[in-house]
Every structure is written in structure tokens, then in C-alpha cells.
């Protein structure tokens, strides 16, 4: 369809666009004044072109790790939860850490697709599809852990309000039950939202399809979309409503996850700051993952004109903002631990988390905390690393952004490690104290979920438009009937 992509600019060379003064001019969302047809060609070209070599290699590795994930689940089921490092008093080990981490990653996708949509952030269109896909696959990885950590996996369905042979029902006062509803709703609504956004783009793929299989497949899933304006009218309303519903949903999901901790009576868990602190941390880690995925992809798939440096910069700014909220929450936790005067809280935060063997420990005359290294990894990655994004030089340097985004992911994993392990590992009775370490099965299980995630993500790249074609077209000046590039007459008349 390349012959139809006539540049509108070429036809009207003497066109003069009256814009705002130069210092207020924004960098365009699609660089190099690309035509509407070019956007389709470029994005659909990712699917229609030859399978790249790097894709095959990455897929082989991911698939191997996915197999490992299922093998570890099988081993766990056939042997028992003793294969993990969970032991009294640390009964919540890596399974819950990984669950919270993965589900937090998903939150950036919903923030981009829903909250930024309500806030009229038009730059979201270039990244929302890939971020939503990331959400769905991350929630899938997250969902595995609570299911397998219950021990007798074959009774997992007792969590759902389904009649069973003992005719007893779930107990709805437990936040763990709320979690079941929150996470399953989150997954379902994310899929609905993602699929609805896909319908017009699947129609693009259907209309370009050369092979019978593609015509049939894309034709079936695009549901006969024609691009009728009467349809667009209902579609846009439904999209707005889904964005409006997803916003309270995404805020509630990690709040409810945090209630799993804060409803209990343990020092370090029993805090009212947890819900907002968890949501900010979730968005922070999610943006880290979006950057980790999209910064290399824009290069590999030659999408630099659609996912521009401005997009990367804006994502870095969100990371900076949410990272600073997380840093503030850490500080506030320490302040409250000290201000409350509660000896257990003070013990946990100062002697069991922060006391390192070099500075704070010797200064306060306390022994180093058993997991001081985990705590300080967390502080370095979550408090110091995002502050680098104040600098434009760093935000615009793709290699550094990629590197820092990985540190963000590491930092947020350690945050969950610190919360889960240090609160449990030295409990109220000192005779119960012990040191928790994971087993190789724990580690392989976690690595396996990366395989699952990347297998799905790579398949998504090859078979589904990874950028919302119709939405990106909609934010170009060529799509604006009151802009000269959209064919408007002088004075913006159509």
C-alpha cells in the first residue's frame, strides 16, 4: 500500500503554519512530519517483515526459561513447598515478593492507558499498546505465585466463591480474599481495555493482509470494524468509560495488595502509608520496565520517529516523580517509627533494616542488621537512581536510561524483599529468630517467570501491532481538520 502514502506536504509546498512562539513550540509527537500512511506502513511492517534474527534468539531463550518455570511448578507440586526457602518464622518468601513485584510492574501499563488518557496526555498513544501488553503478561506472571504458594495447589479454587463439597464459603473479611477479586478483575479489565484498543488496528492488519490465514485471523478478531464514524462515536465513549473505570481499579489493586501486609499487626507492615506508597512504587517500577522494554525496541524495530526521544524523556520524568514519592514514603516510615515511640517499630526500622556495618551501625552503637545490604540496595536504586533523571543529558541518552531503568527494577524487587523478609525474620520472640535464604528452586522459579513474560511479549511483537496505529494517526497535525496539514483553509476553517 506504499503507493497511496502520498505526503500531503509535498502537495502543498508553500504552506505556512502559524504556530506558537519558538520557545513554546512543542516537539511533535511523530518526528519528521510522517504521513498517515507511513504510520500504518511502519508499524504494520514490524509484523509483515521477515522475522529478525534477534527475535529468534530471544524467543529461544525465553521459551527455554518458560519451560523452566513450568518444570519448577511441577517439581513444587510433586514434592511440596519444602523445596522453597520458606521456614518459620519467614513463611512468606520469594513467592510473595515476586507476586507483588510483577503486579506492580503491570501498573504502569494501566497508568499510561487510563490515567494519562483522562489527563489528555497525547504522548501516551505511542507507548500505550506495548505498556498494556506488558501489564497483561506481568499480571499473568504475578498470578502464578499466590496460586502455587498455597501448598495444595489443587485446592486453589477454594479462593473463589464456588460451592464445594463442604458447603463452606470464602471468608470475605480477609484482605487475601479481596486480593483474589482485585487481581482477577484487574487482569480481566486490562484484557478488555487492550482488546478494545486493538479492534481498529486489527482492521488495519486485515485490510493489508496478503495471505489467507492473516485475512481470516485478523478479520475474525477485528469483528468487522469498518471505521464508520457512527461506530467511532460509541467506541470513543466506551474507551473513555473504560479509562474512567480502570483508573480507580489500578489505584485499588495495589492498595489491596498493600492491605495484605498493613492489616496484620507486624512492625514494618502495620502502617497507614502503605496503600499510596505501594501504588507509587508500582507505577515507578512499571515505568522502569516500560523503559527497559521500549528503549531497545524503538531502535531494533526502527520506531524512533514514533517513540521519540521526547517520549523517553517524559517517561523518565514520571519515573522521577513516582521515585521521589517512594523516597518520601521511606523517610516517612522512619520518622513514624521514631516518632511513635514504639520499641518494636524502632527496632525493626533502625536495628533490623537500616543499620549497616560501616556508618549508621557504628554511629548508633548497634550491630549491623542481617539484611542491611538488601536495604541499602533498595535505597540506592529507588531513592538515588531516579534523581539522575533531573538532568536532560541523562534523560536523552538512551544507553544510560536503559541502564538506570534496570536499576529501578532491581530496586523495587529489593523493596519487596526488605518488606517481606525483614519484618518476619526477627519476630517478637527472639528464640524464633532465624536467617532466611532462598533455595535454587526459588531462584529458578523467579527466572522462569521472566521466560513466560518474554515469550508472550515477543509473540505480541510479531503478531499484534505494538503501537496503537489509529491513535497515533489521531494525534498528528495531518489528522486535525483545523490544521493546515489536515487540509484546513486559512484561519483554520475546514
Amino acid at each position, binding site marked *: 500500500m506504499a503507493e497511496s502514502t502520498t505526503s500531503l506536504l509535498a502537495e502543498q509546498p508553500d504552506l505556512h503554519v502559524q504556530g506558537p512562539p519558538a520557545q513554546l513550540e512543542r516537539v511533535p509527537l511523530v518526528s519528521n512530519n510522517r504521513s*498517515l*500512511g507511513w504510520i500504518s506502513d511502519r508499524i504494520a511492517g514490524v509484523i509483515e517483515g521477515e522475522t529478525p534474527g534477534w527475535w529468534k534468539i530471544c524467543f529461544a531463550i525465553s521459551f527455554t526459561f518458560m519451560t523452566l518455570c513450568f518444570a519448577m511448578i511441577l517439581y513444587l507440586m510433586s514434592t511440596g513447598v519444602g523445596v522453597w526457602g520458606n521456614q518459620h518464622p519467614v513463611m512468606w518468601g520469594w513467592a510473595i515478593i515476586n507476586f507483588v513485584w510483577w503486579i506492580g510492574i503491570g501498573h504502569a501499563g494501566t497508568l499510561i492507558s487510563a490515567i494519562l488518557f483522562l489527563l489528555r496526555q497525547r504522548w501516551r498513544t505511542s507507548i500505550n499498546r506495548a505498556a498494556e501488553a506488558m501489564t497483561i503478561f506481568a499480571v499473568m506472571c504475578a498470578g502464578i505465585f499466590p496460586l502455587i504458594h498455597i501448598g495444595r495447589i489443587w485446592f486453589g479454587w477454594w479462593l473463589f466463591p464456588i460451592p464445594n463439597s463442604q458447603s463452606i464459603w470464602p471468608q*470475605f473479611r480477609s484482605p487475601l480474599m*479481596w486480593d483474589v477479586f482485585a487481581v482477577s478483575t484487574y487482569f480481566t479489565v486490562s484484557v478488555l481495555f487492550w482488546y478494545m484498543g486493538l479492534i481498529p488496528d486489527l482492521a488495519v492488519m486485515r485490510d493489508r493482509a496478503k495471505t489467507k490465514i492473516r485475512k481470516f485471523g485478523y*478479520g475474525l478478531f477485528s469483528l*468487522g470494524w469498518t471505521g464508520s*464514524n457512527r*461506530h467511532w462515536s460509541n467506541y470513543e465513549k466506551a474507551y473513555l468509560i473504560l479509562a474512567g473505570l480502570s483508573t480507580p481499579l489500578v489505584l485499588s489493586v495495589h492498595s489491596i495488595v498493600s492491605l495484605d501486609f498493613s492489616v496484620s499487626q507486624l512492625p514494618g507492615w502495620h502502617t497507614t502509608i502503605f496503600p499510596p506508597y505501594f501504588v507509587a512504587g508500582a507505577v515507578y517500577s512499571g515505568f522502569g520496565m516500560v523503559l527497559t522494554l521500549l528503549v531497545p525496541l524503538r531502535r531494533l524495530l526502527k520506531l524512533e520517529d514514533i517513540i521519540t526521544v521526547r517520549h523517553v524523556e517524559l517517561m523518565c520524568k514520571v519515573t522521577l516523580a513516582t521515585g521521589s514519592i517512594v523516597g518520601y514514603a521511606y523517610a516517612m516510615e522512619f520518622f513514624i517509627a521514631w516518632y511513635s515511640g514504639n520499641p518494636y517499630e524502632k527496632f525493626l526500622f533502625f536495628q533490623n533494616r537500616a543499620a549497616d556495618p560501616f556508618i549508621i551501625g557504628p554511629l548508633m552503637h548497634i550491630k549491623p542488621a542481617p539484611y542491611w545490604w538488601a536495604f541499602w540496595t533498595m535505597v540506592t536504586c529507588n531513592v538515588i537512581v531516579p534523581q539522575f533523571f533531573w538532568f536532560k543529558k541523562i534523560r536523552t541518552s538512551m544507553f544510560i536510561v536503559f541502564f538506570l531503568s534496570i536499576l529501578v527494577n532491581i530496586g523495587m524487587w529489593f523493596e519487596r524483599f526488605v518488606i517481606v523478609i525483614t519484618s518476619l525474620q526477627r519476630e517478637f520472640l527472639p528464640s524464633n529468630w532465624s536467617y532466611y535464604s532462598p533455595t535454587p528452586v526459588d531462584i529458578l522459579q523467579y527466572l522462569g517467570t521472566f521466560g513466560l513474560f518474554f515469550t508472550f511479549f515477543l509473540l505480541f511483537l510479531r503478531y499484534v501491532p505494538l503501537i496503537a496505529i489509529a491513535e497515533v494517526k489521531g494525534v498528528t497535525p495531518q489528522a486535525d481538520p483545523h490544521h493546515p496539514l489536515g487540509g484546513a483553509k486559512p484561519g483554520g476553517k475546514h
Partner: protein
Amino acid sequence: MPAKAYAIMAEFETPAATLHAAEKVYAAGFRNWDVFTPFPIHGMDRAMGIKNSKVGWFSFIGGCTGYTTGMLMIWFMNAVDYRIVIGGKPMFSPFAAFPPSYELTILFGSFGALLGMLFLNRLPRLHHPLLKNRRFALATHDRFFVVIETCDAKFSDYETRRLLESLGSRHIEWVEE
């Protein structure tokens, strides 16, 4: 006009020209007509005289159903069908039942929005005369189409074509049934 014509289809190249054409076609009093675009054009609903979408009602009813389902389900399970005292607290409390009901509100409301949109658009409809037209495939690419159906009361073989030509369409063709 061919014997089995479904509609007449005029192609436009810019959103401004399409918006202008839509205003004129609406003013001419047509009812069975539509505009097909690769992306929603700002202001097109008003130009075509389309009223506010009714999707919101489907979502609202879905949300109400979800909340009621959640509250009734939890009340029935924990306070009627199998009563267990937990921590000496009341059998049913709307506060503990709120989070699952809240999630169900959103779940059912979302299904209402998506299914309501599909119902109002009469989708899925995998067979449509326009989808057989080769030229129409550009409607998802970079062209804009104004389509007037032959079943419209105002439709006339010659006049309608003249109208579309006068609006600046460079390519007009008949769409077969």
C-alpha cells in the same frame, strides 16, 4: 447506477475536506449515510448530527449490577448460608464486603462498556458490502470515505453523485450489494 448497488462512495484525502463534506451531506437531509475514517476526526459527530453515545447507560447498569451482586453474594454466603463468627464481629458488614463489591462494580461496568459498544455498533458483523470493496481498504490506511446508501429516501441517482462531486471528491464509485 448498477442494478445491485448498495451505496455510493466518495473518497476524500484530508480530514478537513471530509468534515466539510459531512456537514453538507447532513444539511442535504440524508439519513442512511456514514463517514469512514482511519481514526476518529474531531468535530465529526457534530457535523454528522450524531447525538451523545448511549454506551454510558450500559456501563452504568453493569456497574450497579456488579455492586449489588457483590454485596448480596457476601451477605448470603457469610451471614445466611453458612454463618461463622469471626473475631466476634457482625455476620455481615458492608465495610468488609466493600472491596470485593467495588471490584465487581468495575468488572461488570467494563463488560457493560465493551459489550454495549459492540451492541450499539451491531458488531461483530463479519460480512459487509463495503468490506468487499477493494478501494475501501484504504479507509483504515489514510483515506476518508463518505458513503450514502441507495436505500435513503433522499437518494437520487444523479443528484447525489453531483453533490459528492461538488464537495471535491476525486474518486466516486458504486458499492455493490
